[in-house]
């Protein structure tokens, strides 16, 4: 058979398979991400059917997928959003980072994977999935709830942190020394800061330059600009994803609206390809050995996220019920944990990191919506059981206790 025919058949089969899986996920009202990962696992290395000719294209598609994911994330926020959140909510962001990144780092060190893997795994456990959480909030009819802005501002801060964190791991994974690493970090911070300032001050002008009444031209200009900036960022060792994120931040107003609508389908396509690609490069046989650490990590970091949300909501003056809801909602991890792990997998530092991240995300992307739904009732039930105690436990006491309800949450159905 002709090679281009083989490619079309393979790639077409992948996309069609993903579409059918997505429909299946839609029927059960859950995120298709885990199914895409499983589809990738099923094929490729050690799977049922190794892919041949489409491998290279899927790899490039995955790269574009990450760029589009971050660009769309940038488009969601205006620079003003980011700056105001940073000013008012930074303590919540710091608590979130400390509570959720440390367990990941500790696990990597426990397994003896070394410091670089520890920094990567810290990111995997730290960043919640904005996509899954926004959908869950809508599905549960909680968009109007008073704890919702608290949840969203934590997500904003995490996404903003990615702009600093990604360049760091890019440098670390490239094996840069301390001096080169610091230089990279300085460049990254400088560029990110510069873009924020420019976007706040001159966002209108940038948007006017890009703006076009014709959707076709708008699509080409935005996509071209994003890929170009991402490429330059990669060349500067800052990470392509961050470049794309900053382009998204710099675009605002009507241009952002228009680009959002135009690029959504593209993002969906390439992001799906990215998840498959990640699965393809993970040998399913390597998952069972890391299943226990993944479960333990999922359990601990579900607890720490609940504590984070509880604390942040308490700080915003939300009542106890809302605090538990905020905590439970934040549990879901998803696309960004995979993006971070993907960087590590392609650089090939620790062979078991990919499988661990896959198992971890699979667990939490499924458990996350359940904890969002059930943490509050379970906490209320536990509270009634121990009603001899104070009705509103202090946050630190809650932290020990909520390691108990979250794993039970699914069983409570």
């Amino acid at each position: 058979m002709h090679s281009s025919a083989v490619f079309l058949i393979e790639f077409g089969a992948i996309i069609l398979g993903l579409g059918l899986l997505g429909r299946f996920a839609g029927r059960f009202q859950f995120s298709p991400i885990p199914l895409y990962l499983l589809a990738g696992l099923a094929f490729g290395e050690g799977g049922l059917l190794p892919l041949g000719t489409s491998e290279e294209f899927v790899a490039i598609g995955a790269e574009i997928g990450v760029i589009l994911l971050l660009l769309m994330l940038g488009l969601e926020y205006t620079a003003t959003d980011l700056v105001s959140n940073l000013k008012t909510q930074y303590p919540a962001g710091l608590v979130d980072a400390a509570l959720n990144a440390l367990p990941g780092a500790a696990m990597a060190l426990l397994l003896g994977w070394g410091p670089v893997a520890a920094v990567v795994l810290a990111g995997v456990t730290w960043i919640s999935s904005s996509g899954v959480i926004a959908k869950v909030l809508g599905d549960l009819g909680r968009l109007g709830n008073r704890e919702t802005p608290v949840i969203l501002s934590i997500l904003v801060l995490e996404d903003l942190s990615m702009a600093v964190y990604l360049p760091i791991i890019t440098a670390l994974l490239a094996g840069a020394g301390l001096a080169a690493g610091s230089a990279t970090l300085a460049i990254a911070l400088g560029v990110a800061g510069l873009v924020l300032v420019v976007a706040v001050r001159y966002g209108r002008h940038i948007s006017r330059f890009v703006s076009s009444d014709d959707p076709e031209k708008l699509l080409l200009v935005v996509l071209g600009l994003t890929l170009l900036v991402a490429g330059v960022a990669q060349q500067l060792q800052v990470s392509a994803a961050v470049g794309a994120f900053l382009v998204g931040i710099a675009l605002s107003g009507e241009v952002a609206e228009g680009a959002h609508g135009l690029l959504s389908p593209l993002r969906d396509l390439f992001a799906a390809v990215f998840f498959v690609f990640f699965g393809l490069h993970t040998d399913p046989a390597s998952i069972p050995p890391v299943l226990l650490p993944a479960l333990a990590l999922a359990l601990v970091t579900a607890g720490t996220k609940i504590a984070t949300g509880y604390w942040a909501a308490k700080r915003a003056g939300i009542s106890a019920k809302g605090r538990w809801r905020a905590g439970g909602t934040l549990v879901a991890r998803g696309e960004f944990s995979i993006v971070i792990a993907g960087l590590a997998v392609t650089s090939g530092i620790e062979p078991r990191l990919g499988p661990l991240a896959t198992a971890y995300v699979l667990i939490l992307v499924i458990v996350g919506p359940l904890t969002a739904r059930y943490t509050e009732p379970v906490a209320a039930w536990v509270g009634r059981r121990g009603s001899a105690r104070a009705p509103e436990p202090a946050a630190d006491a809650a932290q020990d206790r909520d390691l108990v309800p979250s794993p039970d949450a699914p069983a409570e159905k």
Partner: protein
Amino acid sequence: MGTPRLSSTPLPGIGVRYDLTTREQRRISVVAHRDGGRTLSAYRKDDPDACALSVRLSAGESAALIDALMPAHHSPSLLSTTELGLVAERIELSSTSHWNGRLLGDTCMRTETGVSIVAVLRRAEAIPSPTPDFRLAGGDTLIVIGTREGVESAATILGRE
């Protein structure tokens, strides 16, 4: 009583939330999504942070609701001749309507309700004074004139699925 103020809270990545606290200390909020959709929420009395009701509205549904909320609102009527007791209304046939593909005469509209169908709006054109052998289709908008009661029962007849 001053004018009640809507306070607004940005929801990064989703839109803006507008809150209103009524004189009876009940809270209502509208989340304005960036795609033009709206979510209308009313808060629970026992847990003021959570919503008892959360309804997602499309842009068109929001417009219809605004119309009903306007203090000077009477009806979606084209002509309000209250002193004559006559009203005119637009009634839309749904795509799954019982009358889809049936003749206008089959509805026995004038005999049953006493209203007149003065025109049918279909896509971009208006068909004035449709005859009884006019064939209706789902999506048509009928302009009817009659008494308030007659128009109500006409809407019931035309609403048959």
